[in-house]
């Protein structure tokens, strides 16, 4: 017998099953909270920090990731306050400055309101979202991929850095990876990275209802959870 709770997201009363995350509840209700590392049916780790929301209680607001926050009766959530918009934009700016060579990453940045990038572009081919690692570990138990190293050295690798024999060739990692979708104009050369800005037009559709899901094209590249339903 499923138990339900009622919480408030951006003023709207939302009913969600106990054990669901605030992000899950929002997506189901058509409230758009940008996310990158979240994949339905895989564990949530709160690594990309894009899905941050403000949880209001006792007159104080705490910033936390909605994917790791479980719904509770009477919870008050703000997913699109000015503060959250600014923080989210800054995080997306960091991401796209690190790995602009992916339509999916650029789309996330546009969705989060990034207009210009104030850091020198880098040419990383991985945003460390962990989707590949989690699908390999949790869906298939192959454990052929894992995060190795700390901080700046953190990267995805095989066991011992070379044991490809653990891989079962299912292709799930490639399917989920946001870096496999190249920009519309083709791959960017190292040293010539730029912010494309073309899909900004997509956002005009959402201009009147900024926090509602409108099945925009932006979610397709990184398989936003709404599309995965």
């Amino acid at each position: 017998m499923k138990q339900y709770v009622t919480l408030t997201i951006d003023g709207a009363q939302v009913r969600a099953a106990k054990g669901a995350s605030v992000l899950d509840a929002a997506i189901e209700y058509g409230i758009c909270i940008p996310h990158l590392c979240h994949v339905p049916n895989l564990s949530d780790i709160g690594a990309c920090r894009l899905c941050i929301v403000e949880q209001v209680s006792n007159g104080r607001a705490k910033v936390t990731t909605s994917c790791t926050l479980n719904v509770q009766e009477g919870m008050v959530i703000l997913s699109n306050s000015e503060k959250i918009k600014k923080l989210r934009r800054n995080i997306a700016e960091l991401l796209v400055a690190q790995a602009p060579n992916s339509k999916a990453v650029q789309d996330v940045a546009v969705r989060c309101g990034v207009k210009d990038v104030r850091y020198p572009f880098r040419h990383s081919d991985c945003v460390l979202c962990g989707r590949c690692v989690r699908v390999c570990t949790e869906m298939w138990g192959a454990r052929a991929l894992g995060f190795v190293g700390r901080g700046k050295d953190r990267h995805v690798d095989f066991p011992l850095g070379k044991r490809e024999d653990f891989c079962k060739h299912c292709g799930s990692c490639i399917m989920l990876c946001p870096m496999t979708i190249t920009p519309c104009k083709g791959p960017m050369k190292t040293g010539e990275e730029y912010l494309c800005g073309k899909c900004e037009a997509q956002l005009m559709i959402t201009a009147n209802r900024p926090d509602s899901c409108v099945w925009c094209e932006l979610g397709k590249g990184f398989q936003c959870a709404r599309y995965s339903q």
Partner: protein
Amino acid sequence: MTKLNTTNDLEALRKQITAQRKNIRTTLTLCGGTGCQASQCRDVIDAVKGALGKHGLEKSVQVRISGCHGFCEQGPLMVIEPGNIFYCHIKPEDAQDIVSKTVMSGAVIERLLYVDPVSNKTIQTEADIPFYQAQDRQLLSQNRLVDPCSIEDYIAVGGYSALVKTLFQMTSGQVIDEIKTSGLRGRGGGGFPTGRKWADCQEAPGDEKYVICNADEGDPGAYMDRSVLEGNPHLVLEGMMIGAFAIGAAQGYIYVRKEYPLAVEHAKIAVQQARECGLLGENILGSRFSFDVEIARGGGAFVCGESTALMASLEGKVGEPRSKDVHTVEEGLWHKPTTLNNVETWANVPLIIKNGAARFAAKGTNNSKGTKILALTGRVKNTGLVEVAMGTPLRTVVYDIGGGAANGKAIKAVQTGGPSGGCLPVSKFDLPVDFDALYDAGSMVGSGGMVVMDESTCMVDVAKFFLQFLQDESCGKCVPCRLGVDRMLEIITTITEGQGKPEHISLLQELAETVQETSLCGLGKTAPNPVLSTLRYFPEEYAAHINHKRCPAGVCKPLITYAIDADNCKGCGLCLSACPLGAISGEKKQAHVIDQQRCNKCGICADECKSQAVTVN
């Protein structure tokens, strides 16, 4: 070691030990802490024992190797009772004199006495040393009285009597209330009210609970926990036992960072001895309380000082923190309710139970009670471990205890709280050592590290140093910390290289606030503090670097040039042979020259030069 089955057994043992020691007329306490070990105290200890043996005094003179006294630069050091005579900078050759003159004849050896660097007076007794006098050494003074490898010493000074009171005169609820009333707040950096933490954990559902002692002390420049755990492990154990009783835990862990091998060893010995006499195990002293402790070693990761990362490490995994939407007091180690506290927090517990919460709360301020051990280091005359009542002004610590500036340079700032803290200028030195006061000023008490900086320290370089440290130690899981700290470091490095732009300041500020608000764990959340506090209090230094391409303190390498003043140079060649890059040339007795192409501004030549001929521009 006989097994103690009841409290009567414990009291009988205590009386027996005390009686046995009545015949000892003289006690020599030598410090055997890590600091003094580095000063080769082992050789001194052997020499002293040898000298005592030669005079047939091994039985009547007790030699106690204690833990750290906190006055490390004066080591190897010794305190002689009776007389409270304090000797420092002892060499093995001095052992003979110490035994024949002081021990046998009561004569004081002048050359071994401490000279106060402020007054230049020679001080004879430990009690008269200004560095100690200005402190309130509730915890540290106990280090002097026990050999950490001797449970008998601990019992002789009243050890485990708080445990007896807890087990047989109090309920778990009363223990928690006592800790709440005391106002004790976490000493590891978080400053969370300990009583509330224990209460939440005790109330959490589940009958398998854990207590953990966090001895991962990763803040560079902080070694309070090392000294307490190394010097008085039974005090920490007793605190953990009391806490475990209060919350209902039967198993505890002490997680010690690997870089403290002596602390690991002493903790292991203490646990072993406690087990042998039944103070750890089933039905302790005949009560219904059963408890055991295991020692675990850290693997070399600052992030493992964070509670969820530490627990992951204990579970045999990588030390990556997790989101704390569910607190560890409800779901911690192995997803069970866990109370994790710092070494110093645990060490305060037995005294609170023994002497009562009111006495503890009588010291300190409204919201910060008791005493705090600080590691005072940097550019002051007296460095070492300092224990003061909360509420003591920073000024008192830096000048009265620290003795003021070393090297005649003006003190500029004090950095408190390690990499999570901030830099406070001299104008803020009237602020008290108080959790809330320092937090509001943009710094924090943190674990207690206090580094004094003078005019030869570049505050932009300090921000860079801490960012480099945090970048090195970040686990890398979340974007704001991994990329945000990296970009902050990129911007600050640009500034120190003379390529900074005015808009960098506002970008740094905005990025710092983002990292603070959105990082997953405490490491990331506090990472911007050194940057934010230096921006707030030392904007003129940033302005000099950006607008004038100048480093006022003469530290940032790309902005300084090393040159040899031909007028002062004697041509002695010291710099030439010291330069690791061979960048200096010159004939004997003739002015030497630095090849600017080869020079990497390491400053070794300036260090070696005895004629003040090396200039920094």
